[in-house]
């Protein structure tokens, strides 16, 4: 149980330190409001910080995210709590909220850690690196990832053998196994929910073989394989380290599929798959890339041209619905699919399959407020009660939603949404 107890007050609580939460926090802080940003993960930056490049410009994702993250981290009006969770929020009146936040122990004094990684070198334990989507190992004493913010070590206590090697190796003596959870009681004037999305779990579609067939991976794993800080030296099959030459994308894996409980379009899968296909054509010049799709939804600015560019580069688009994936002895994969245009069932051989997994809601949203005060939509995203006139408003006056916590959207839309949420939050704070 929490031993420490800290009481503090802020103008705004922003829940979630991804690109939307960070943008909302910056907007508020730049206008003179005191903000606390609570992030569950060990670093801010959300999912965007882990992407390779962004569509349709193919700009480096980390190059966009890191200056923003750095600005947030250094802003004097923003207090950041990483490795922390909002447990409960109560609205006591207008401009008056109370929140309970738990900061989990990192077992490292953040202010003293220099990020030298000597603890990481000394640690003998290797477990799956969640930031590389389990494709490579990390230590139990570790810096989450190279561009993490804060770039501070953490101890994975669940996998630590308590051998003390990290503590002995630390030159600043900042590792502290006596740390305990800290509880914060916060008084606030407004709240912004920017908890983002979860990726669809492809284990729910057994016929796609994810988990069993090692050369079936998710699009987020491919993002990591294509990123400069990738787990392997190049794009390799996780099954056997072979450089793939016939890659297939399966679109709508967990989206637009009522059988898995997610009938809506995830809005970004078509475009991120087209982006990855283009990057693969660059990384593996001899490779054939095929995208199996139901419809290509290239609805945004520059998206159709981006799609045309992929076709021009030689990406093969097949209008087909995948029935099942089976594996050959050598790890190659057979895709059985319905060719929608020809109305026949066909089979195709590939040596690697990427499931373009959809976006689903973050279940944390339901737990912040008591008695279902925060209304959710039928897909458990935060309900926008006045979608057309005031899209950041929620069912609780003074609580606003930013980014994909309200539904699937791409990065520019998330930033726009964060702008709307921060503006509405400021209006709420200053109105009489």
């Amino acid at each position, binding site marked *: 149980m929490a031993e420490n107890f800290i009481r503090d007050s802020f103008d705004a609580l922003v829940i979630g330190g991804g690109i939307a939460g960070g943008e909302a926090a910056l907007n508020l802080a730049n206008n003179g409001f005191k903000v606390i940003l609570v992030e569950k993960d060990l670093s801010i930056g959300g999912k965007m910080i882990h992407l390779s490049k962004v569509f349709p410009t193919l700009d480096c994702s980390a190059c966009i995210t890191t200056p923003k993250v750095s600005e947030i981290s250094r802003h004097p009006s923003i207090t950041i709590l990483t490795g922390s969770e909002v447990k409960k929020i109560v609205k006591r009146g207008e401009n008056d909220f109370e929140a309970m936040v738990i900061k989990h122990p990192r077992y490292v004094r953040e202010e003293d850690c220099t990020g030298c990684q000597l603890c990481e070198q000394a640690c003998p334990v290797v477990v799956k690196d969640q930031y590389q989507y389990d494709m490579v*190992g990390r230590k139990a004493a570790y810096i989450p990832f190279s561009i993490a913010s804060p770039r501070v070590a953490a101890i994975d206590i669940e996998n630590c053998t*308590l051998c003390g090697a990290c503590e002995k190796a630390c030159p600043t003596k900042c590792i502290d196994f006596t740390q305990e959870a800290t509880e914060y009681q916060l008084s606030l004037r407004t709240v912004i929910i920017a908890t983002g999305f979860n990726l669809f779990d492809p284990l729910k579609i057994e016929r796609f073989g994810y988990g069993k067939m090692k050369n079936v991976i998710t699009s987020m794993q491919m993002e990591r394989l294509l990123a400069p800080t990738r787990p392997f030296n190049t794009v390799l099959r996780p099954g056997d380290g072979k*450089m793939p030459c016939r890659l297939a994308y399966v679109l709508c894996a967990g989206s637009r599929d009522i059988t898995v409980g997610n009938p809506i379009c995830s809005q970004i899968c078509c475009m991120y798959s087209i982006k990855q296909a283009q990057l693969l054509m660059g990384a593996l010049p001899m490779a054939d890339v095929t995208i199996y799709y139901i419809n290509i939804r290239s609805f945004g600015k520059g998206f159709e041209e981006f799609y045309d560019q992929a076709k021009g580069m030689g990406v093969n688009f097949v209008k087909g619905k995948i029935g099942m994936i089976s594996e050959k002895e050598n790890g190659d994969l057979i895709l059985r699919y319905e060719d929608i245009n020809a109305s026949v069932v066909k089979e195709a051989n590939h040596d690697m399959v990427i499931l373009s997994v959809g976006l689903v809601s973050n279940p944390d949203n339901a737990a912040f407020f008591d008695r279902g005060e925060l209304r959710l939509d039928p897909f458990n995203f935060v309900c926008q009660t006045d979608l057309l006139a005031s899209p950041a408003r929620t069912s609780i006056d003074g609580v606003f939603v930013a980014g994909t916590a309200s539904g699937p959207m791409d990065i520019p839309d998330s930033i726009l949404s964060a702008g709307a949420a921060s503006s509405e939050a400021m209006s709420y704070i200053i109105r009489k």
Partner: protein
Amino acid sequence: MEEKQGQTYKLLREKREVPESVKENLKKFTRTKKSILEALKEEEMTVRQLSQKLGLPSHELLFYLMTLVKYGSVQTGIIDDMDEYYTYKIKA
């Protein structure tokens, strides 16, 4: 505070037992690391060759091998004539 600095793991060890699965995981990694490094001492090898020599599933071997690359014990060698598999060798 000064006295316990650098020794706090001992205090937690008194309160918390390390699960058997964590100890087993450490043993497995140490054993696999040793066998990979010994095999690579003889010659550069691909994931498939290493997998056959050590009797480990190739996906598992790739995981450990890439972890050793990440932490600087092993480095990537050359790609084979078919442009399919890289070799790996002990880092010089």
